C-alpha cells in the first residue's frame, strides 16, 4: 500500500466513524464496493421478483379499491427496483449485467418470494408480515454509510411503511367479513409466519459476514436483534387483528420485556436459499421469459435512438 492509498483508507474510515456518507466519487476499499454492489443488487432483484407473488392477484383482486392499491404497490416495487439499480450503477455496476446475473441464478433475491400466494389474503399478509420484516431490516439502511443507497432507502422505507399499513388494513377488513374470510386470513398467516422470521437471515452464530458489514457501516444490527424487534412489534398487531401465530413457544417474557419464540426450521431456509423452494424455478423462469420476450423491444429502442442520432 502506498502512502497515498493509506491516506485514502484513513479518510474513508474517518468518514464512516463520523457517521458521514461515502459518495460515488470518493475512494473506497474494493471489498466495500463489492459487498455493497452485491447487497444493493440483491435488494433490487428482490423488489423485482417481489412483484410476482402479489402481481399474481392483480387480475383477480375482489374490489376495485384493492385492485388500484395493489397495482400501485406493484408499480412502486418496479420503481424501487429502478432506484436501487441506479444506486448500484453509481458503484460501477451495469443494470443489464445485474439482470443477467439474476436470471442465470448467479445473484440471489430475498428467499421469501419463493413462497406461493394461493389466496387473496396473502396480499394482505405479505404487506403486514413480509413488508413489516423488510422494514425492520431496511430502516437501519437509511443510515447506510453509502450515500446513494441511504437516500434510496429513505424513499423506499417511506413507501414500504405505507404498503405495510395497507396490507394490515386489508386484513382488518377481511377479519370484519365472513367466517370464510377470517379462515382465509388465519390460513395465510400460518403459512407466512415462519418464512417471515427467516427473512432476518440465519442466527447470529451462523452469520459469518455480519461483523465486517457492521464495521463498514453497511449493517447496523445483528439478525437476531432485528428478528426479536420484529416479533415484539408484530405479536400485539396479531392480537388486535384476531389471528394467532403457529408457534406454541410464543410467550411474553416479563423479565426480558420481550417475547420468547420458537426456532424456525433452518433446514427449510437453506433449502429455499439453495434453490429448492416451492417457487424458485417459477420466479426465475417468469423473469427470464419477460426479459427474453422484451429483447426485440430493447433492440428496437436502441436501433431507433441510433438512427435519431444519425439524423440529428
Amino acid at each position, binding site marked *: 500500500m502506498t502512502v497515498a492509498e493509506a491516506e485514502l483508507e484513513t479518510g474513508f474510515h474517518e468518514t464512516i466513524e463520523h457517521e458521514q456518507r461515502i459518495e460515488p466519487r470518493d475512494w473506497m476499499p474494493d471489498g466495500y464496493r463489492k459487498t455493497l454492489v452485491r447487497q444493493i443488487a440483491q435488494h433490487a432483484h428482490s423488489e*423485482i421478483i417481489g*412483484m*410476482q407473488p402479489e*402481481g399474481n392477484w*392483480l*387480475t*383477480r*383482486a*375482489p*374490489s*376495485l*379499491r*384493492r*385492485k*388500484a392499491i395493489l*397495482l*400501485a404497490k*406493484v*408499480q412502486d416495487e*418496479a*420503481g424501487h*427496483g*429502478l432506484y436501487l*439499480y441506479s444506486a448500484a450503477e453509481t458503484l460501477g455496476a451495469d443494470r443489464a449485467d445485474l439482470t443477467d446475473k439474476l436470471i442465470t441464478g448467479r445473484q440471489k433475491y430475498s428467499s421469501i418470494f419463493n413462497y406461493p400466494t394461493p389466496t*387473496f389474503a396473502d396480499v394482505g399478509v405479505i404487506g403486514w408480515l413480509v413488508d413489516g420484516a423488510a422494514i425492520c431490516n431496511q430502516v437501519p439502511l437509511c443510515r447506510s454509510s453509502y450515500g446513494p443507497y441511504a437516500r434510496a432507502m429513505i424513499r423506499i422505507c417511506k413507501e414500504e411503511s405505507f404498503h405495510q399499513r395497507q396490507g394490515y388494513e*386489508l386484513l382488518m*377488513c*377481511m377479519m*370484519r*367479513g*365472513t367466517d*370464510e*374470510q377470517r379462515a382465509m386470513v388465519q390460513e395465510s398467516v400460518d403459512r407466512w409466519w415462519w418464512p417471515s422470521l427467516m427473512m432476518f437471515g440465519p442466527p447470529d452464530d451462523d452469520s459469518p459476514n455480519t461483523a465486517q458489514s457492521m464495521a463498514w457501516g453497511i449493517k447496523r444490527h445483528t439478525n437476531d436483534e432485528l428478528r426479536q424487534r420484529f416479533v415484539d412489534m408484530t405479536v400485539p398487531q396479531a392480537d388486535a387483528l384476531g389471528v394467532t401465530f403457529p408457534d406454541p413457544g410464543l410467550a411474553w417474557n416479563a423479565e426480558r420485556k420481550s417475547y420468547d419464540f420458537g426456532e424456525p426450521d433452518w433446514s427449510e431456509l437453506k433449502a429455499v436459499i439453495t434453490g429448492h423452494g416451492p417457487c424458485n424455478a417459477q420466479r426465475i423462469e*417468469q*423473469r427470464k*421469459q*419477460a426479459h427474453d*420476450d*422484451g*429483447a*426485440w*423491444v*430493447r*433492440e*428496437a*429502442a*436502441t*436501433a*431507433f435512438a441510433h*438512427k435519431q442520432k444519425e439524423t440529428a
Partner: protein
Amino acid sequence: GTALAAYCLMLADDALIMSQRLAEWSTNAPELEEEVALANIGLDLLGQARLLLARAAAADAPCVPALPDGSPVPAEDALTYFRDEREFRNVRLVEAANGDFAASTARLFCFSAWRLGILQRLRESSDPVLAAVAAKGVKELTYHRDYAARWLVTLAQGTDESRRRMVDGLARSWPYVGELFDTHPVESSLAGTAVDPTDVRAEFDDALATVLGAAALERPDAPFAQSVGGKAGRDGVHTETMGHLLAEMQSVARAHPMGTW
C-alpha cells in the same frame, strides 16, 4: 335516467377492461420503465372507471346487480364483479388478448386517440359529473396517447423485426377500430350529455395519419369485423376472449358475495 347510466357504463367498461388488460403486463413488460408506465396508464383508467361506475349507479340504481341481503359490496364492485358478460358494454377493441408489446402499443394508441377525442368533447357535457371526469381524463389520455405514439414510431422505425411486429400488431387491432365510431342509440338519445363518436372520426384519422407518417407505415386496409346480427360490444355481444377475462376477474369476488375487502 337509464340512458345516462347506460352511457356511463359504456365509458366505464371501456376503461375497466382496458385497465384489466394493461395490468396483465405487470411483471411481463420489456423494461422496468415500461412496467411503471403501463401500470400508471392502467391506474388512470381504473380511476376513470370507478368514477363512471359510481355515476351509473347514482343515475339509475336498478342497473346495479342485486346481491344477497346485507351484502357489503359497494355499487362499483357489484357492477364490476356481478354483471354477466351480456351486460358489459365495452367496445370489442379493449377485450382482445394483449399479444406482444407491438400489438398492445398499437391497440393502446387507437384506444387513447379515440377516447381522448371523446373526453375532450365530454368536458362540455350537460352532466356535471361526466364533464368533471372528462376534464381530468383529458390530461391522462393525452399522456397515454403520446406514450403509445412514441413506442409505435420507435418500433416501426427500430429493427426489421420490430417493424414487422408493429405491422402485424396494427393489423390485429384494426378489425375492431370501426366499431369505435358507430353511434349507439343510447348516445343518440343523450344529445348535449353524450358525445357522438362519429364527431371524433376525423380527429382520430388525423392523429393516426400523423403517427403513421412518422412511423412510415401504411394505414391498414383490412375490413372491419362485423357485428353479430347488428349487435356488438356496446350491446353486450363480445368476442370469445371476454368470457375468459371475466371468469378470471370475477372469480374471487363471486366466491364471496358477502365479503368485505
